[in-house]
């Protein structure tokens, strides 16, 4: 059975734990193949992405996902780029105004 786009997107978001930074989508290691089978079954059973990710993080920790979930302890992780951007704009505000006026 060919993999659907949704399926591939899920595999791309999951870390192959026995590979060097590869996703499940990129890896053909035994663990990756087995885990893909398990996930495929869950998709056939009409489980949502959220349910699948919950299953995985319960067993393997948040680290198994490439995009960490938005939780209290990852709020800073997700928010930091925005904070840095806002901070940078603030620091350079006078310069920006000068250039914009030209």
């Amino acid at each position, binding site marked *: 059975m060919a993999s659907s786009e949704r399926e591939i997107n899920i595999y791309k978001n999951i870390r192959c734990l026995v590979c060097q930074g590869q996703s499940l989508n990129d890896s053909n290691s035994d*663990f990756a193949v087995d*885990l893909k*089978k398990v996930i495929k079954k869950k998709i056939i059973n009409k489980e949502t992405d959220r349910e699948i990710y919950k299953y995985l993080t319960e067993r393997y920790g948040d*680290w198994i996902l490439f995009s960490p979930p938005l939780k209290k302890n990852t709020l800073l992780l997700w928010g930091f780029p925005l904070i840095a951007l806002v901070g940078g704009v603030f620091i350079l505000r006078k310069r920006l105004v000068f250039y914009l006026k030209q």
Partner: protein
Amino acid sequence: MKKQFKIFLLVSIIAIFFVIFYYSLKANNKNNPNVMLNKVLPTIELISFTNFNLRQVLPIINKDKYYLINIWSSWCVPCREEHPILIKLKDKIKIYGINYKDKKTNATSFLNELGNPFYFIGSDKDGSVAIELGAYGIPETYVVNSKGLIVFKHVGPLNKKIYLRIIELIK
């Protein structure tokens, strides 16, 4: 004065980042095996290795104070290394074995050669039971209490130090 302050601010920001990155790089970024500690063991049904009609569901509640689950196979070299420790543990704690992606003949030879510490052995032909338990590299060992809680989990072969930890835990 303002210029000095700016330099000071810049240097402190760089220093803070240095500290954060240093500790982050040092931090062990391997999967944290503790994520399942003190959680209930996921329910699994083991099909007996010796008799396909015999089933065992885990966790078992309110029977043994503690029991051990060990995921192993005959082709796994560290499993062979740790096996004597399982034999030592046999008299102290009930051990459920999960034979992972293995051939019955090879597994049987392995046990005939090195001894059988298992109270019950289940077959995990496709690795799905191991995944259900959050395992990713064998051997892996769990100690479960009478409430079904995982009180100890170890990835990799058991050694003397871990043996002593387990003994201490199940006193």
